[in-house]
């Protein structure tokens, strides 16, 4: 299969791409200094303790402007190092390049926070920011994991959005009717899987274009849940749309560690499910026979078939099982946080999960990291708007999407998906 190689335009872009990373880093550094640093007056306070914590950590009070200047200076140094690396004067491994991106983002966020809290009487609670980030990221993380499995097996799953939404809907109804949260969770997972069945059936058996199919399935679920919401949930709201929600579980011991405890070990069952799934999928894809075969089916189905792997069976099974994960993610909306279903509740987070998957280079850890980045901006926006920071929340909310475009366009590094992704396999 010939891929239409980028032509002359891409050659120019490739030459420019060499300097894209150092220039982007430098821009971030300059923003830290000349936007945040110069406009910061007074001190910024960071607190690291939630109310009623057993162990308290003292607040950190820093001079906002100095912090911004320091962050900017470090970022500029990193940009310089990256430039030297691009010119071939020093050598940097792949790991160091990624660490650099992480550091640049970290210092950018630190100076943004310092600037926004400068001179304010309210402190920024870092623990709340981080634990909130993990919570709002749960559907994105689980959806992205679903996407990773589907893509790795060679099926494009744009229907993550529909899986989240139907999972949310079914979990709400099942929990309301039975009063059993676990049954609700199960129904949510099965609902996600049901969309997976449709996706698998139409994509694998009827070979419908998978991108078209995903969009149509999302429309179907959006219409169906919106319809059923108005037709039966509104008139019978008390019995059909009144679910309990899972309570947070604090892990004994670990949950009392300052900062780390409340962020990672004091949340609902959904976060722990995410940990388990992340570990299972990472190990499963790269350390087990199932994973090797799944990757083979996604990269080169003909070769996989030649050695006796049943390509279509693998695709069916993986797509349907992966649907369970997104269904759980959807259930989080209704029985994990809100406590009732609303039309279009997933509000595009399935598409964000898709972006997170690509951003994360189709790997479980990468996808989770990207999902957390998206979640962080959402949480940051809600925290900043609560302390009346003069920043346009809408502009903050659109940054992750711009960043995704930049990433997909290859300015920070080329992302390559499984070779046979989206190509139906026809046994010849």
């Amino acid at each position: 299969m010939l891929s239409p190689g980028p032509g002359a335009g891409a050659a120019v872009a490739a030459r420019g791409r060499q300097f894209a990373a150092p220039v982007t880093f430098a821009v971030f550094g300059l923003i830290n200094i000349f936007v945040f640093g110069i406009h910061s007056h007074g001190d910024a306070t960071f607190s690291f303790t939630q109310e009623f914590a057993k162990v308290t950590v003292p607040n950190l009070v820093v001079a906002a402007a100095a912090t911004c200047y320091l962050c900017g200076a470090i970022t500029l140094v990193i940009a310089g190092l990256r430039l030297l690396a691009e010119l071939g004067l020093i050598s940097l491994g792949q790991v160091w390049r990624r660490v650099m991106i992480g550091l640049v983002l970290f210092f950018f966020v630190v100076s943004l926070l310092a600037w926004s809290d400068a001179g304010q009487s309210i402190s920024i609670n870092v623990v709340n920011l981080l634990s909130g980030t993990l919570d709002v990221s749960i559907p994105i993380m689980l959806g992205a994991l679903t996407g990773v499995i589907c893509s790795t097996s060679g099926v494009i799953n744009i229907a993550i959005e529909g899986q989240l939404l139907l999972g949310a809907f079914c979990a709400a109804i099942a929990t309301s009717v039975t009063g059993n949260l676990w049954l609700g969770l199960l129904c949510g997972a099965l609902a996600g899987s049901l969309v997976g069945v449709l996706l698998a059936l139409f994509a694998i058996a009827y070979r419908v274009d998978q991108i078209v199919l995903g969009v149509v399935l999302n429309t179907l679920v959006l219409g169906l849940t919106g319809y059923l919401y108005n037709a039966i949930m509104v008139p019978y709201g008390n019995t059909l749309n009144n679910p309990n929600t899972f309570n947070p579980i604090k892990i004994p011991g670990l949950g009392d560690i300052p900062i780390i405890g409340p962020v990672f070990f004091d949340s609902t069952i959904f976060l722990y499910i995410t940990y388990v799934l992340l570990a299972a999928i990472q190990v499963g894809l790269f350390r087990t026979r199932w994973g090797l075969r799944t990757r083979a089916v996604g990269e080169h189905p003909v070769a996989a078939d030649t050695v006796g792997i049943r390509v279509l069976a693998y695709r069916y099974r993986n797509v349907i099982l992966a649907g369970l994960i997104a269904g759980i993610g959807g259930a989080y909306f209704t029985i994990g946080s809100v406590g009732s279903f609303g039309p279009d509740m997933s509000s595009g987070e399935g598409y964000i999960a898709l972006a997170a998957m690509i951003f994360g280079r189709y790997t479980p850890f990468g996808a989770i990291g990207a999902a957390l980045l998206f979640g962080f901006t959402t949480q940051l926006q809600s925290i900043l708007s609560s302390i009346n920071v003069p920043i346009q929340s809408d502009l903050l909310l659109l940054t992750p999407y711009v960043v995704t475009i930049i990433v997909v366009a290859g300015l920070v590094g080329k992302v390559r998906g499984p070779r046979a992704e989206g190509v139906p396999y026809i046994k010849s």
Partner: protein
Amino acid sequence: MTTPSPATEPSATPPPTANKTAKHSRQRPFGEILRESFLEGNTFTVTVLALLTATIIGGLLVAFTNTSVLHAWGNFFQGVKIDDFSAPWHAISSAWDAAVGTYVALFEGSIFNPHTVSALFQQASLSAAVHDGYLSAVFNPLSETAVQATPLILTGLAVALPYQAGMFNIGGQSQFIGGAIMSAWLGYYVNLPFFVHVVVCVLGGFVGGAALGWLAGEIKARTGAHEVIVTIMLNYVMLYFLAYLLSSQSLLQAPGSSNAITLPITSNAHLPLLAGTHLRINAGFLLALACAFGVWWLLNRTTTGFEFRSVGANASAARVAGMNVERNWALVMAIGGGLAGLAASTVILGTDFTLNPQSFGTYGIDAITVALLGLGRPGGVVAAGLLFGALHAGSPGMQTATGTPVQIVQVLQALIVLFVAAPPLVRAIYRLRAARASGVGGTLSKGWNA
């Protein structure tokens, strides 16, 4: 690996089949040929059966979720009396009534409502009836269908045209917003004479949408980033960007207003009404039809269109033949985006007369269903746009009359397209033979990396 098939070049398939049918018609009775061609499950048959299947499933959905039906079933199951046969009968009949009533209400709201005619004939004099809008009321459903179909046709074309060049444009929403921003801003900020102002605003809408379409196409051309991801991301970028513009006093927000809304469009910039002041049908509908013709002409009668179709059929072959594939990608996305921008201008200048954060509605998604049902061809898009426009026009009245939520329309749309996209499924349901030239689907698939 997929092989190029006749289905990627739809316009080329009908003639051979037609010739063959004509040759055989001398030997066999006409009825048999008609039956044969129907059972063969060609594209037309499949589309009709897809519509039928979706209608039936939609009807079942309504029948099983209508509150009065649920009550009737509740009475049946709790109604205890064994000799009472009326309870299940009542439940079934009310289920039938609910489903049929929904479709009748949809029809009355979108095509023709007999009550309006009787109201017209009860008027004393014809001239008074015309003046009071009773005559208009008869045509109001059709007018509403045309009004609803206008942006659907234009956004449908915005998906269908790039589709012919092998690009899947999910960015209808972002391009719609881009066009809406330009039309609305030109509509209230600039002062121009009557005709000039409308034209400027409509052109502004085209430019606004085209800029966003071009951006997605250019990013793909330069870096190879898949247009689906880029356009989805641009949808969200524009969504928040619009919210930002509409909440900033110095930008688009109406001065002194606390609502996220622009100033109203000046009357000079309104699209002219076509059938009197009582009906909302406006010049936007003609613009949509003209654009459909224009897209057909562009695709089938120009070198540019030939290049688009070549790039869509086989980009590598097109490159070998000396075509600039990247330039074609950017160009086709720009024109497609421009069409979505025009859709926005017909909504802003034709019916809404202002811009708010929800102006873009669900056109981005609807566009995809319209283009798919229309098989990616301009004529098909017009037909599909009119059909879905009728559903949209009838749905508010349907909800009022029968209590069936308007979202049933979205369900119907998705079901129709799902079945249209999978002809083997429809053939399996109705036990039709596979046609020699298969319809859409089947061979359309290609991956991210293609």
